[in-house]
């Protein structure tokens, strides 16, 4: 996910003064319509179901049917044709491909893989990145993580390849046909809002735990950006060029392969980049269902409360993310620059040299009998890290004069913010919440987004997860509030000072790619068990995206507007309040939207540290094989995500995740 959001700066700056007035009028109209609808419907609802919480009569209990489905699957998994002739093939194919790639890596040995990675980076992105790449791979070895890194990489290669094929085909269909595109868009939108944790369960039900399930979950998560960007690239093909190609008498297929696809190369590469990032973040979450590799190391370290060991497995993930991101991004930029190499090593010759060098290195190491990473070459960082974490928690947990310890803050935060918000939400009559959702979604979007949001919210009630979902919602709201306050402040700071920005960049990179599991234990050590650590983890995770989007939005404000304000003698504070922030409004809205989606994803994982509510139900479902509980909670999370996305979604979707 690392730099996913970094490139999503919205294109246009905000609406002018006249537009704002018009907008206000239209908003008023919408509210009036809503009020009329409410006046008709609420008395009916209230008369029939007066309870504050979602009325019991309007719920559907899915426990039994879902339990039956899961029993049927387990009983028939070994014999039914659906499994033996369909899912079984998929499963076997995944296992075999991952195995093939893994064996290839093992055969190349550590030196061969490092050389190959470095040389590929050299061909694609130049010498500097080649060195970085090689060093990154060596660091993975030094941390004692060579084998898990190779396992994760093997899984990634297969998952990314599958995502690119699936996403590419979907994108192709959407790019060529307007109708498919219209049908596809809401599906892709929805898939991108879903917290990954929510759909681990259905995959596990069919494939059982292990690599096939992990790969499929990853594909579901990572394919949408590829599909979206492919479609975007094809649709945006330069009209002039297309016309020229058509006038030359090219057939539809020729037009596609000779003009449209090459023109869309930049978007295709950006899609690949996003897909890789998403797949990598999923590789860790999938460790919960037995994906193995680095994620599993992080997860196992968690079990023995060993932050140091978790970090040792987390760093390779960050390094892989950075290397893969920079390499694919560099490839995209090269194409964009239309730059032609003139060196004697261009094209096939350069690649040939790279291949020869790789084979030579691999053979040399094999001959020397040093194929495996030498065990004596590992550095243990675990003790140092654990000492640091212990020191921090010892000194911060409690008893600091005046400001109190982190445990006191957490308790205050829970009692003064989380509790009242949750109780307030649960106290509100159910129909009034639906009205609020409708109003918010309609004011910011269209009547269609409003309808989706209301239906999603109602579905939660129908599933019988009303009050647990409101518990989760209260955590999301609190976390988003904190994230936005801090994120806007830091983001504005970064936008105004080049130095702050430069200092922040690596920190943001690390926090965005570091698997969330790594910081679950430190947040418990600081904030105790409960909802507060879940909120803290969510804030840490969502902050980088909000900071990035805010900084880009503020910095991207039209310089002429700023210049004229300055010439009128506005102070820096006035410039910020009256020019930069209003003009950056679309960016800020996008930051809110991204903040909400990211926070939700982690608040759910907060079920592992006492966050309770929907996250706990999903964890419970996975742990107990209780598919009814887990699936229904998963669906409720999805609905909550949809609702939150629609309520915070700016009307023009100019700069959503990856598109």
């Amino acid at each position, binding site marked *: 996910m690392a730099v996913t959001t970094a490139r999503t700066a919205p294109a246009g700056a905000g609406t002018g003064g006249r537009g704002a007035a018009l907008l206000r009028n239209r908003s008023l109209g919408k509210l009036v319509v809503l009020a009329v609808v409410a006046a008709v419907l609420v008395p009916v609802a209230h008369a029939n179901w007066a309870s504050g919480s979602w009325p019991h009569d309007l719920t559907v209990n899915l426990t039994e049917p879902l339990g039956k489905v899961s029993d049927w699957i*387990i009983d028939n*998994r*070994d014999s039914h*044709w659906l499994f*033996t*002739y369909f*899912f*079984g*093939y998929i499963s*076997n*194919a*995944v*296992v*075999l491909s991952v*195995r*093939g790639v*893994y064996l290839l890596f*093992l055969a190349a040995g550590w030196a061969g893989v490092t050389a190959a990675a470095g040389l590929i980076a050299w061909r694609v992105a130049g010498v500097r990145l080649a060195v970085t790449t090689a060093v990154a791979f060596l660091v993975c070895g030094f941390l004692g993580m060579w084998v898990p890194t190779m*396992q994760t990489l*093997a899984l990634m290669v297969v998952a990314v390849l599958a995502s690119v*094929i699936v996403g590419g085909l979907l994108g192709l269909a959407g790019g060529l046909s307007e109708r498919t595109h219209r049908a596809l868009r809401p599906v892709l939108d929805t898939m991108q809002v879903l917290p990954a944790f929510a759909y681990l369960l259905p995959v*596990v039900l069919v494939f*059982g*735990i*292990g*690599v096939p399930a992990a790969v499929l979950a990853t594909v579901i998560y990572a394919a949408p950006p590829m599909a979206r960007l492919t479609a975007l690239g094809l649709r945006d093909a330069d009209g002039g060029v297309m016309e020229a190609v058509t006038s030359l008498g090219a057939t539809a297929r020729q037009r596609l392969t000779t003009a449209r696809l090459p023109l869309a190369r930049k978007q295709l590469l950006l899609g690949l980049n996003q897909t890789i990032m998403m797949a990598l973040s999923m590789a860790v979450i999938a460790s919960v*269902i037995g994906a193995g590799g680095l994620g*599993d190391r992080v997860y*196992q370290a*968690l*079990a*023995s*409360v*060993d932050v*140091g060991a978790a970090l040792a497995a987390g760093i390779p993930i960050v390094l892989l993310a950075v290397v893969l991101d920079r390499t694919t991004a560099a490839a995209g930029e090269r194409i964009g620059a239309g730059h032609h190499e003139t060196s004697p090593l261009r094209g096939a010759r350069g690649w040939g040299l790279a291949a020869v060098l790789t084979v030579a290195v691999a053979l040399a190491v094999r001959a020397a009998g040093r194929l495996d990473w030498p065990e004596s070459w590992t550095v243990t960082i675990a003790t140092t890290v654990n000492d640091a974490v212990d020191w921090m928690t010892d000194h911060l947990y*409690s008893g600091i004069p005046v400001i109190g310890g982190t*445990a006191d803050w*957490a*308790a205050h935060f829970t009692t003064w913010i989380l509790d009242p918000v949750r109780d307030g939400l649960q106290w509100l009559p159910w129909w009034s919440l639906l009205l609020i959702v409708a109003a918010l979604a309609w004011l910011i979007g269209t009547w269609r987004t409003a309808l989706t949001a209301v239906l999603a919210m109602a579905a939660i009630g129908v599933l019988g997860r009303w009050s647990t979902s409101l518990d989760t919602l209260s955590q999301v709201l609190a976390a988003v509030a904190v994230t936005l306050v801090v994120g806007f402040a830091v983001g504005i700071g970064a936008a105004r000072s080049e130095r702050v920005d430069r200092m922040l960049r690596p920190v943001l990179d690390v926090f965005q790619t570091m698997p969330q599991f790594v910081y679950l*234990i430190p947040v*418990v*050590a600081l904030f*105790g*068990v*409960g*909802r507060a*650590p879940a909120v803290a983890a969510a804030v840490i995770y969502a902050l980088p995206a909000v900071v990035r989007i805010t900084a880009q939005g503020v910095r991207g404000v039209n310089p002429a507007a700023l210049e004229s304000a300055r010439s009128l003698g506005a102070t820096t504070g006035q410039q910020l309040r009256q020019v930069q922030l209003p003009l950056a409004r679309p960016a800020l809205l996008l930051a809110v939207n991204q903040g909400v989606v990211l926070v939700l994803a982690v608040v759910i994982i907060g*079920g*592992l*540290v*006492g966050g*309770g509510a929907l*996250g*706990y139900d999903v964890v*419970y479902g*996975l*742990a*107990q*094989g*209780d598919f009814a509980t887990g699936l229904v909670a998963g669906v409720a999370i999805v609905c909550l995500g949809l609702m939150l996305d629609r309520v915070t979604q700016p009307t023009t979707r100019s700069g959503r995740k990856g598109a």
Partner: protein
Amino acid sequence: MRRRAAALLGAGTLLAATGCGAADMTKQASPYANAKGAKTVTLSVQSWVGAQANTAVVKYLLEHKLHYRVDTVQVDEVPAWDALSQGRVDAILEDWGHPDQEQRYVKDKKTIRPAGDLGVTGHIGWYVPTYFAKKHPDVTDYKNLNKYAGQLRTAESGGKGQLMDGSPSYVTNDKALVKNLKLNFQVVFAGSEAAQITQMKQFAKEKKPYLTYWYQPQWLFEQIPMTEVKLPTYKEGCDKDLAAITCAYPKTPLQKYLNTGFAKNGGEAAEFVKRFKWSTTDQNEVALLIADKKMAPEAAAKKWVDGHEDVWKAWLGK
């Protein structure tokens, strides 16, 4: 062009992978198994450290004395049974009793075979730290717990006392117990054992009182002495109706289970796992090295193996 090559390659692997017959979902080994022609055994590890200790020692001995390659996968308890039946893992070394799964996989489908006792007896209960029990001796009977609800309150427990439960994968009747015994307590789920241990350590550092669901054998007792709270005695069958339950948890002799295929064809490794049986003290020794001394499981296993040749010689059957 490249895309077409990729598609062909994909279709090719698919065909090669599957032949043309039915795909057997019961033979789904890990893709990382048997790499480089080594004989591989895949073990499941559950999230608690005792289970890690079992696995670490078995893994060490299999690798260094019997020359197998051992893969470990972290799985929760119930999914581990599922994985075992499908052959994704070869053995579960520590099971706390799952009658439903036993019925389904051992008795009906026969895809799993019992492999005898682990040698360790497990017990679940409610515990308070001993420093607190010493100050208030009567807290160790559930009848007096309500008196202490105020002291045991946290931000998460609402106006009531907090009874901290752990991972959702653990067997627990605590919600029903609190209700049926009319206790003024709120069960707060830590969500994972790691979170629970971290919280207990923080409480202990400040000598704060707490009440928690916990179990033996467990290495944490060496670090934080805890006293069990007496619940109404367990009698055979008193836990039949989980909603109306009012009795304590039973003592469970922990069991090992093997995938049937592995039990038949696993050779030396399967025989070794069947014979593997050690004491609570031994397990705790390794668990403490892993969790408290933060040794890598492998190093902890080596340390124990070096000092207890008399114990593990018998497992090798030589």
